[in-house]
């Protein structure tokens, strides 16, 4: 019982690393950028991978009518609060509650993460498709529709002269590991309980 509590405790704390490390990274490669342009996405900030990268991404993107990456989005307020609340809940569960609650915490975290990813996808879609009608360069798909420039949610994709990479970073891995620890704690708790029952 004690061991699973410690693991649950650690699992609840790990997502706090999101305040230190980026959640996600988008990197744009092109021949003219031997050092690629990159943006680190934190739960409360968009940051340059190298100095002035976001400014330079904006400069590139204005040719195809994409909006500037905003300095701040509402999610930067919501996400940190969400992480703090779920951490507090996790810690309370670790200290006080029955092992079954570890599973409930895990499920809650999965739902929160999926919601976050979906929100991220919506923003990306808008960013890639909501183009200025006076864009300097307009591109169409083979079927005649207006070409979008949405970076991939996960993975690598060629967009015009750029190759865009979108991958989770230490923050996201910390969140994932924290959730996994919650689930492990649940199974450990259940095993122990079963052993106790048999005895």
């Amino acid at each position, binding site marked *: 019982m004690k061991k699973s509590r410690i693991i649950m405790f650690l699992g609840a704390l790990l997502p706090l690393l999101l305040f230190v490390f980026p959640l996600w990274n988008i990197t744009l490669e092109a021949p003219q950028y031997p*050092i690629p342009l990159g943006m680190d996405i934190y739960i409360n900030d968009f940051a340059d991978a190298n*100095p*002035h990268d976001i*400014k*330079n991404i904006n*400069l590139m993107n204005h*040719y195809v009518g994409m909006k500037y990456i905003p300095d701040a989005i509402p999610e930067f307020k919501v996400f940190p609060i969400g992480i703090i609340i779920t951490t507090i809940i996790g810690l309370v569960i670790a200290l006080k509650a029955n092992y079954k609650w570890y599973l409930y915490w895990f499920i809650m975290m999965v739902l929160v993460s999926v919601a976050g990813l979906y929100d991220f996808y919506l923003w990306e879609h808008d960013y890639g498709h909501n183009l200025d009608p006076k864009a*300097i*360069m307009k591109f169409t798909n083979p079927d005649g529709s207006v070409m979008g420039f949405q970076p991939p949610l996960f993975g690598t994709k060629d967009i015009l002269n750029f190759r865009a990479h979108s991958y989770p970073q230490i923050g996201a891995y910390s969140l994932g590991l924290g959730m996994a620890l919650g689930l492990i704690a649940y199974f450990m708790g259940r095993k122990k309980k079963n052993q106790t029952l048999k005895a």
Partner: protein
Amino acid sequence: MKKLNYLILALVGLATIFVGCQPKSKTTNGALSSNAAERVYVAPGQHDEFYAFISGGFSGQLSVYGLPSGRLFKVIPVFSQDPEKAYGYNEETKPMLNTSYGFVPWDDAHHPDISQTAGELDGRYVFINGNNTPRIAKVDLSVFETTEILEIPNSAGNHSSSFVTENTEYVVAGTRFSVPVPQKDMPIKDYKGNFKGALSFISVDPGDGRMDIKFQLLMPGFDYDLSHPGRGASHGWFFFTTYNTEEANSLLEVNASQNDKDFIAAVNWKKIEEYVNGGGGTKMPANYAHNVYNDDTHSATSTMMKEVLVVNPAEVPGAIYFLPTPKSPHGCDVDPSGEYIVGNGKLSADLTVHSFTKMLEAIKNKKFDGEAYGIPILKFEDVLAGTVKSGGLGPLHTEFDGQGNAYTSFFISSEVVKWKLGTWEVIDRQPCYYSVGHLMIPGGNSRKPFGKYAIAMNKITKDRYLPTGPEVTQSAQLYDISGEKMELLLDFPTIGEPHYAAGIPAEKLTANSRKIFELGDNRHPYAATTDADVKVERNGKDVHIYMTMIRSHFNPDNIEGVKVGDRVFFHVTNLEQDYDVPHGVGVIGANTSELLIMPGQTETLVWEPKQVGVWPFYCTDFCSALHQEMQGYIRVSPANSNTDLSWSLGD
């Protein structure tokens, strides 16, 4: 399968025959057999091993080459205007070329030398001398731009310059021509005994690198040709070659070649520094310009200095000695250990090498051979370490490889001669095409040379390249000196006349090379660092446009209300913060150059409209896919019109 085996066997047999036929000895000459092409080939996208800063001579500039490829990367404008970079044309850099004679847009740039710490190259600055209107310039190697120029008063023909001491305590600038000090109206024939040769010791601030003339030594009226600092044990001394110790004032080619021996002047600058720090020397009225460029204001200021501290050799006994050296020595070179001082007697066949230890001994024993203007002359035999019987003719300059070897250029016999320090034996000689002046080994003027390559800087090329009319290219030649024998690998053209060069391993500079200027650090008084700062102001007949530029537009790009007779100042700030995205500006009919503005920088172009009309301006540096769209119009109304000042972008 069996057939294939026979085929392989046959091929192996053939290969054996061909290998067997190859010449066994490696002594054959020629680039092809020595794979010279491969050794100077730097593949596309790869970097050279060394930077070489090669003086442009009468072009007044300093060029930056890569070694071993001999590729030209940049011409750094130093003493001459450069319309490509607007140096000396824009309002910000005009003060750099200010002197006591007014604006001097040209000079003769001679001897670059890289700053040192503890006797080794530190890669902070390159110093270079302007020979004609005596000046010393400092190029900052984080930006590869000239950031300071100091005029040298009481000097004329600033040739025995600009060499640095072991910790860059001083950059030294010696006069070639002796002149009346202070200048005055007097008969030329009264030269002898009345003219002085000023040797200037310019201190370099260890923090910001700011130059200041600490003192000037007023030497007898000889010609001071070249100089080098002592190092190691001889640190604290400086050595200058002299010629025209005859003090002739006419037909010097004959009259200054009569003495069998001239001198190397050994100057104990530490001793004079102590004297000066103790309040010694005389403050003399002077007038010379000190021009400093600031990378935050992106502007230069010129200050006229009104005083210089002069020291008469007689005031500091025991600080200066003359070492007799045969036949009008040119180069004055000190080996990496600091023990040997090489006098390159340019009218002789032999090289004279003096010993620092012997010199100190002779001074201690007061074994003098008379004196000149109160300065003791040491006995030639007492200070001589050895003579290199070279077999060549006209030695000019010697460099060192740090492996105990020296390399001397011979102008008249047109060759490089390699010899051994201490035994004075000649090891190798290779021809130069043609008439070599100076040599350069990276780190050659330091305790730690990088003895892999030497370049010879030649005075004549004749038929070495495709002809280009009467004026043909200047040239340098690259030798591999890593083996016992030197090997000529490459000829490459240079800008202007390459008098001397300074080389440094590339890795000592690349990490510090700036990519952009931070807009946030821009302190230019007319900067517009955001679009909100954009405006046009009238002040009498002066119109100031605070303009921005970013891919791919100017803001504003429509300006009205300017009148004939106005002076229009385009203060243009490049808002880019990306590497290698400069923009340029050209305005029709401007009586000056374009501007070429680096990211984060502000520069100013003055335009004086003379005709009514609507006139375009545009970006001169292909910046982006929309470069051709990067243009604007300025409306010029008659002098008496009432058109209001207005400006806009995108309506």
